């Protein structure tokens, strides 16, 4: 009886602490929102395997840790008012990795998409729309069907949009857009606007910031077309280590350079 009341009071303390932390975070975001807040953030989720090796976790555990980190960061972004989030979940190049690892990532993706479909009510409550961006024909049938179903189910939401790049590379996207433009135009001239319309990423505006974690400075064939006036960021933290302080630092850096990027965007149109 005593232990039960003790655990009850413990959980109350934990809950109070949790809501205090959440309140402080909202205050921090209120201050940051004085300046311009990016409307589209793109992330290359690099460093999951290194994280697993660093902490001696098993194979595949790094990706799960990365998933938890993704959920937390998404919550912060939506609280801050970021409307579009794009993540580089799986590149066409990654199909060349060890078959066990590829299968592990595919299984994780299927598991998470099915989980999302189960929580449909919550997803719709938050108004999140999910889009899968990339050459979906390269995915196995169960994953592709689940992805298409998730897109259908959340299509009417518009408060926040999550774009998940699977089986995606920029060069493949460009080739696909060119092909679609050719199919559309039987005669006449293909203009740049036609090509841009057929890009997989045409459903969202260009990203304001492209973040690649674990200190790597390459873009690895991700959003090369869409980042003409985006801030490229390369924090040294591994993806599962990304947290609130990294996001705040990122947004403050963006606010410093936003006027310059705006003028560049207008000139390059």
């Amino acid at each position, binding site marked *: 009886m005593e232990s039960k009341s003790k655990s009850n009071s413990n959980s109350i303390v934990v809950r109070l602490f949790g809501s205090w932390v959440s309140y402080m975070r909202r205050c921090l975001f*209120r201050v940051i929102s004085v300046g311009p807040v990016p409307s589209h953030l793109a992330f290359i989720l690099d460093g999951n395997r290194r994280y697993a090796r660093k902490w001696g976790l098993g194979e595949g555990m790094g990706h799960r840790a990365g998933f938890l980190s993704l959920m937390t960061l998404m919550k912060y972004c939506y609280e801050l008012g970021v409307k579009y989030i794009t993540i580089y979940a799986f590149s066409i190049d990654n199909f060349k990795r060890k078959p066990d690892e590829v299968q592990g990532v595919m299984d994780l993706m299927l598991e998470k998409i099915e989980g999302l479909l189960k929580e449909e009510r919550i997803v719709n409550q938050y108004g999140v729309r999910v889009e899968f961006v990339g050459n979906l024909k390269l995915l196995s049938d169960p994953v592709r069907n689940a992805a298409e179903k998730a897109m259908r189910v959340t299509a009417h939401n518009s408060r926040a949009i999550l774009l998940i790049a699977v089986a995606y590379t920029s060069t493949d996207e460009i*080739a696909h857009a060119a092909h679609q433009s*050719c199919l559309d*135009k039987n005669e006449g001239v293909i203009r740049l606007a036609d090509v841009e319309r057929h890009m997989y990423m045409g459903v969202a505006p260009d990203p304001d910031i492209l973040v690649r974690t674990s200190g790597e400075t390459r873009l*690895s064939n991700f959003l090369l077309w869409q980042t003409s006036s985006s801030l490229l960021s390369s924090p040294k933290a591994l993806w599962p280590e990304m947290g609130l302080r990294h996001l705040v630092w990122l947004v*403050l850096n963006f606010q410093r350079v936003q006027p310059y990027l705006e003028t560049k965007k207008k000139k390059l149109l």
Partner: protein
Amino acid sequence: MLDMDFVHLATFLRRIESKALELGDRMQKGYKRIWSSGGLGLYLLWLFMHLIVSIWYFAVDLVNSLESYLISSGFMKQYKDLDISKVKYLAVVLDSEEALDTMKVLELLRWLTAMGLRNVCLYDPEGVLKRSKDALSLWLRSEVVPNGANKDGLVKQKYLNLEVISFTDGKHAVARAANFLLKKHYLNADAEIPELTESDMADALAEIGYAAPEPDLMLIYGPVRCHLGFPAWRLRYTEIVHMGPLKSMKFGALIKAIRRYTMVRQNYGMYNCFNRQSAR
């Protein structure tokens, strides 16, 4: 004489008037921001956060300047040996306004040549460098470096393969390639247009004159780490380094960036050896 004084006075008063209007505009923007942010307190807190960030970057700049000085003076021994052959193709992205300073660009090219680089691609979005390309090439060729005579008694002349591109060589080139492919397949009106692959695009770009190598390393000289529209299909696995504004470029910082690249390439090669997979 009185007329002249009157003209001077009028000009002076006009200048004061325009400065006052400018100040009024700025104050109005400030008030709007304070109002929309919900109060002076929040605005001051926000300014304070940015002040901290600015102080941090000021300190980082000081440390980097000191390090650049030490590197270029030869005090740091590990920077003496540089395996420049690892950088097969270098791209330099310049902000268009900074690219107007042709003498600075020439100085940068001299440094790159002195380090032993032979293939450099210069990019600026508005095509400013294309206008000064001839002048740059002429200046570079005219600099005959006395490298010591070889057996035939000829003086070796260093030269740089310089490629200069702008924004129109990026996205617009893709549109042109798409038109090229459309005409090519449209000629066979009966046949269906096959699914275009990446190699089809690459071949099409080559046919219309855009067959250029992918840079290993890209240095960005400008206020922001942004590639400003560099041709997308050439940027796949390029390492991107931000060097800061062109007007404050330092030789030591350049050596440091290139050396860091060569060290990373070494590790990447070793990693590849163990794994035999292509990493991201």
